[in-house]
């Protein structure tokens, strides 16, 4: 281990809306090591993006509010920093790539200026020098430097995502948070972008959080995986542990819901039902009413963490009593 870049403890975030309170994130712990990639996996509404935005302290307030939590980035306690200090950290120490490259760039500014802006803020360079650096960044993500005077609408989706990556990486952050960076892209372009990100991550020796719902992407880029469900991390472990030693029924359900490209006859075994209403989470395990293994106490008691290795834990009532329990799906 080369040291911890990000440590999040007991983070809880909620949104207060007219219709009620959404418990978006309900007390999660994350840590990301230097040079490694954490996959944050979950479906719509699991709280992945909220987690990411909390790290940058960009939760829109109102309606969002951070209820509790400690966030330590590169040794700095972020929650205590004043806004002005925080501005220095965003885009510097930590930066973020967003899901939809179509809307993530300001349509009225040239892409070169948009890259240079971050550089100017964090590296105190002159306009000319910053632009020079921006050109280099563009070239690094595989776009001819001459295109820096163009506007976002002149770029295709994949190219825009490259620009977004260039912005995020322009100040060599210690941590890169990528929020579904390839979901909006076509398969062949997705492959290009993933390849590029892997390559740059190596080159710059960054830590990364990859937010995705696609276990295929996870398999390709992540070292560690955290599975989120209804604002909780229900299972976490190394890539291998999660894929080959799946413990949580939800994780298993995810695997069984994906058509197997190499075995077209394999039947899909979807998770039944829907995710619980985030306005009204059940008192026990949030997953219990969809779970095939559910027991009585699942409905009433919150499950505790059960560790299988220092990195691999699961929050599920199946295990505290019977660590050897095997899921039926027999994933693998």
């Amino acid at each position: 281990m080369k040291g911890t870049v990000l440590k999040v403890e007991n983070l809880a975030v909620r949104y207060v809306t007219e219709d009620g309170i959404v418990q978006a994130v309900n007390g999660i712990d994350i840590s990301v090591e230097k040079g490694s990639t954490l996959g944050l996996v979950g479906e719509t509404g699991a709280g992945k993006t909220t987690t990411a935005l909390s790290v940058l302290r960009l939760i829109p307030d109102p309606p969002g509010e951070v209820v509790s939590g400690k966030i330590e980035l590169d040794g700095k306690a972020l929650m205590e920093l004043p806004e002005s200090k925080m501005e220095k950290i965003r885009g510097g120490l930590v930066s973020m790539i967003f899901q939809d490259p179509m809307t993530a760039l300001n349509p009225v500014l040239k892409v070169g200026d948009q890259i240079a802006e971050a550089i100017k803020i964090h590296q105190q360079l002159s306009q000319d020098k910053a632009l020079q650096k921006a050109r280099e960044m563009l070239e690094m993500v595989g776009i001819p430097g001459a295109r820096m005077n163009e506007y976002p609408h002149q770029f295709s989706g994949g190219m825009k995502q490259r620009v977004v990556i260039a912005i995020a990486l322009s100040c060599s952050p210690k941590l890169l948070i990528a929020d579904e960076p390839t979901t909006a892209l076509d398969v062949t372009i997705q492959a290009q972008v993933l390849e590029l990100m892997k390559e740059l991550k190596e080159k710059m020796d960054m830590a990364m959080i990859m937010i995705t719902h696609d276990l295929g992407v996870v398999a390709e880029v992540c070292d560690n995986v955290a599975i989120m469900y209804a604002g909780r991390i229900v299972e976490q472990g190394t890539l291998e542990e999660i894929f080959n030693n799946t413990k949580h029924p939800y994780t298993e359900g995810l695997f069984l819901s994906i058509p197997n490209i190499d075995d077209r006859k394999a039947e899909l075994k979807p998770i039944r039902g829907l995710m619980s209403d985030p306005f009204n989470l059940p008192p026990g395990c949030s997953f219990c009413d969809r779970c095939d293994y559910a027991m009585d106490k699942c409905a009433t008691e919150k499950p505790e963490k059960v560790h299988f290795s220092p990195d691999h834990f699961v929050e599920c009532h199946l295990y505290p009593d019977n660590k050897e329990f095997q899921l039926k799906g027999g994933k693998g």
Partner: protein
Amino acid sequence: MSDRTLSRKMIPATKKRSQALDVWKRLRKSNSAIAGLILIFIFLCLAVFAPLIADYENDALKMNIIERLQSPGADHWFGTDEMGRDIFARIVYGTRISLFVGVISVSIALTLGGTLGAIAGYYGGKIDNIIMRTLDVLLAIPTILLAITIVAALGASILNLMIAVGISNIPGFARVVRAAVLSIKDQEFIEAARAIGSRDHTIILKHVLPNSMAPIIVFATLKVASAIMATASLSFIGLGIQPPTPEWGSMLAGGRAYIRDNMYIVLYPGLAIVLTVLSLNLIGDGLRDALDPKLK
């Protein structure tokens, strides 16, 4: 953001709920819209129950030289005008005229402009081009100037005033309806309707128009407000409603010479206009929010 709204209202409904009710629920949350509704409700009551409040012939029309230019007081809440008519009574009856003129002229514009806009938007292409280029001609003349020209030509009367204000608002409505139709017609549920074999008119009437109503209702509300203003403006340049009909605009225009010493003569009709227009605007704004699916 991944925290999109989920199915948060799994209401086990057994009866069909009206959407108007939903809109009303959202509208109710806006204080200003409620304030506007209350004001308009008051004005509507004044209009409907005017005969219970004041005597049209004797208070609002009949000259009473002895009591002319009396300041507001117990006998005459808002004072009397230069002919000794009770200003309060005139404002009460004026509510009828002003709201009537506003609503009818907007209805004219909505019917004609709306039809043209819907046709242009739905069929697109050449039809769209012909309709919209023709309306560009109307659009090139600022609304009030067009209204002035028309009233001057037709002569000043309530009917002509409504026609003039109505006609001059046609291009505005055509544009709003067209834009609304355009934004709806490319949605997949229109294609779905076609896929199950619906005909054009069914699609327009059953799917396109009901779904375009939100911006149209909002626009219409705001336009009733501006129609009332336009009427007042026309009165100011002597093209308004004929005496002794108590219309706010003409009260304002007729009383403006007294603004120095008997300010209440123009103050109250002016306030009536401001309050009506204001409340219509408040309602329009509230409706805009309440009808906006994005805010659901």
